[in-house]
């Protein structure tokens, strides 16, 4: 179970959250005029990142707010948490514990 830091409430267990898929995929403003390919890309094309992934979470059983996170999919470690509308911070290095 992940430990997720809600930017409004602080660290909470994953049970309180719902995953919201890849972040920074804005719904096109001019949807009805979009080409079939562009619309299909918006609807269905997502990254399958091995490494640092920008994704959305919602603190459903808490404040109810959506927010964004950078998570390393190889370790499940969060690298950054930021609010909706903010740009993704430059990816930071994961912390590794030396043996």
């Amino acid at each position: 179970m992940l430990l997720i830091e809600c930017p409004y409430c602080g660290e909470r267990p994953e049970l309180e959250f719902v995953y919201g898929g890849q972040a920074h995929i804005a719904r096109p403003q001019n949807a009805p005029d979009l080409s079939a390919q562009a619309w299909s890309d918006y609807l269905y094309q997502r990254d399958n990142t091995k490494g640092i992934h920008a994704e959305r979470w919602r603190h459903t059983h808490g404040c109810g707010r959506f927010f964004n996170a950078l998570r390393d999919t190889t370790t499940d470690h969060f690298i950054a948490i930021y609010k909706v509308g903010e740009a993704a911070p430059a990816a930071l290095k994961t912390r590794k514990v030396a043996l």
Partner: protein
Amino acid sequence: MNGALRVDAGGRINRARPLRFTFDGHELTGFEGDTLASALLANGVHLVGRSFKYHRPRGILAAGSEEPNALVAVRRDDARYTPNLRATQVELYDGLEAHSQNRWPSLSFDIGAVNDLLSPFIPAGFYYKTFMWPRSAWKSLYEPRIRAAAGLGESPTQADPDRYSNRYVHCDVLVVGAGPAGLAAASAAADVGARVILCDEQSELGGSLLGEPDGARAPQIEGERASAWLTQTIDTLTRNPRVSLLPRTTAFGYFPHNLVGLNQRLTDHLANPHPDSPRERQWQVRAQEVVLATGAIERPLVFPGNDRPGILLAAAARTYVNRYGVIPGSRAVVITACDEAYRAALDLHDAGVFIATIADVRAQAYGPLAERARRAGLPVQTLTTLVGTSGRLRVNAVQLARIGDDGKVIDGVQTMPCDLVLMSGGFTPSVHLFSQSRGKLAWDDKAQSFVPAQSAERVRSAGSCRGTFALAAVLEDGASAGSAAAGDAGFANTARRPAVPAADPAIGAYAGALPQPGESTGHKAFIDWQNDVTTRDLALATREGFRSIEHIKRYTTTGMATDQGKTSNLNALGFVSRQLDKPIPEVGLTTFRMPYTPVTFGAFAGFARGDLFDPTRTTPTHDWAARNGAVFEDVSLWKRARYFPRNGEAMHAAVARECLAVRKGCGIFDASTLGKIEVVGKDAVTFMNRMYVNAWTSLAVGRSRYGVLLRDDGFIYDDGVVARTAEDRFHVTTTTGGAARVLAMMEDFVQTEWPDLSVWLTSTTEQWAVIAVQGPHARRVLEGLVEGIDISAQAMPHMSVAPGRICGVPMLLFRVSFTGELGFEVNVPADFGLAVWEAIHAAGQQHGITPYGTEAMHVLRAEKGYIIVGQETDGTVTPDDAGLAWAIGKSKPDFVGKRSLQRPAMAAADRKQLVGLFTADSQVVLDEGTQVMLERDQRPPVRPLGHVTSSYYSPVLSRSIALALVAGGRARMGEALYVSTPNGDVPVQVTSPVFYDSEGARLNG
């Protein structure tokens, strides 16, 4: 009988406390401190089980949780019957009743052992190849027989009556394993003030120290005997209030962000557990830092006949002698590739066991332990391999052969009688938890093992679980890991090292099968004891082209049993690496998965069973419905009244009566479970226009409309009546099951796509009780109760909404209908729901008001062709498919799903469309979900035209009706199609989905 096989003194058993127990009905005696395994060995019982596939006689191989053979059932009563317990971990208590498994009629004479003779015909993967035809026999004959013949224990026959608890806890440093490394780590971290949890799967803390001899031969720590150091160390930790010591507690899984699952066994070791005590407790520990001191598991050697009872791991035999005072045999042969076996030989020799020979497969045995053995007069043979064993229910001899300088076996076999074989292929570090934590492993060629390399979590490994074996080094490693962990958790890092004299390290390891002569002896050489996987199976898999160790594992099932390959993985890897002529690191390693050892379902369920398994949601009229005989059904978490049988009516009779009452008089129905969302704000109408397909701008205050919600892929997601209660306020209803996901979807758009809109969303599902009053007499029932609203047909037409009062409480009154009849839905604050329901019910008596349930509701709406989302829709149905294209606001620039509806495929003529079906025989009611076919009795494979989505007997039409999604259905009106039934395909006629009152006159009554 006990005295003969015990040493006179020493060990950690209490000879003053004998305990009686039974094994397969035989009454035996052990001592306090025994495990079932040690007590059986003390009684001379080596044969304890039959193997999984070949039913071979099996004995006790190990002394800890890695035991693959000695699986037993322990029975307290019919409900408290636990199969597949490792006898090495079952603590003896007075009156313990244990049973062997997988044998019939008895352990010593087992009919299933015929499988052993048939083994040439049942190699790895035999069931994929042999039992293919006829296909029907797979289910009826082959699978049940194979399942009955294979297998281990039997399940208990009654529900588990015990309680299980769970607990969440945080700590600074969690130490897993209380052997020397773990104790040193916990002490070092506790010394600087860290909150420490130290857990260990054994009944006593101490790990490998528990298996060391005491007295003159005891290892020394800080100038005293190890046992004294152990007592003192535990005593110090016990007195520290910031330290929790958890014996009998297995760390079974390592989860992200340093969450470690612990399973604590609380009562299984007690003769008379307190009835209120939980049997087990599951801990979810969130640790700042974790120190893994999980030890190492001795590796068996692979040679023909290596599975006979009486063949033990060397360190296990040593534990039985030193810890339990048990003499596991009288005449032992030792076969080893590791110096540690010499230590076992010396300890057994001291206990009076005759050591016939120490056969070492290596060219030289120089180490200090080998020297001690030679000095003690024990015969040592190097370059010697074991090529066979004999003895039906217990080993009685072994065959040894010399290995030449070229590594090949030299002809000529030496037979050596014995009743005990000790084997050691070195030690495999227990990297299970480290690997679960996603840490990277590295191959250590000297130890012939994988050891922890790069950590992914805040975790350190210490001691033999990372390939450090000498006691001095282990203690030092543990102490520095504990200090460093405490340091990283914010405490002082003051490395404190226990002073230990340099000791003899364990050197030597072997992975794979021992050298054998060219021609096979015909005896099986086991790699995985628990799953009966032999060298032949692995050779077959590589011969058949399997290369990946993950594939070989699944094909042969090696490492897949409940022991998760604890004793077998490295030997399998070593064997395959030689077969494929690839080094072990290139062959790879299979994934370690939780649990480390099996965990009961009860521990995972904890308190969440019975009534506490899931929350139950009930409506304000629930108790009234129950008092009036309602039969309830589960709709998501809600309990809904399904029907109200009278005088023992069957369901179909009750539903027919309720349906006719609504059609002919008046019915009352609790619709409170409908989801309700209040959409408020100056941009509420803009928001609604963007979310739903409908045009909302034109909806006047005091009016409502049937709304359809799509996903952006254009398919129906939810539906419901939406009322405009003010310019800036909408009362949105959703399906019962869809309330939460619709609100979540709306929130997603409000928060992330349209943050510019001024709109607020509030779930009001549980604020309102909703009482539907439906039928031609509905208005007459309500007339006398409603205050402040004119509910005449002219003043309050269909789809109008008005605030008012009823029975003196505030009300929002909807003129709506999900039945096709004149209808109202009375919304009152939930607390008044029951009182208002009772008042309406009383007032309706003179009009024959009849409570009806969800089943009648379904029939009534199906008669009108009203869809239910999730029944007529399945995530691939567009508004047009469902006949709802009329609802779409054509002039809106955009709404969720609009772009997708513009795709040509979404308007294709052969899309599945909602139609009605009339069976030719009006009394045949089709099964929901059945396929609709173009022709009768077609031979498969056939592409169906569609499927039946709803099917009922309609009381008002006195015939069956069905709704179906059929390809190009609206162009097939009047066509004959076919639907399969249990009695064969029956003809149906395609018709309109509106079966009753198609012009809607009754709605406007």
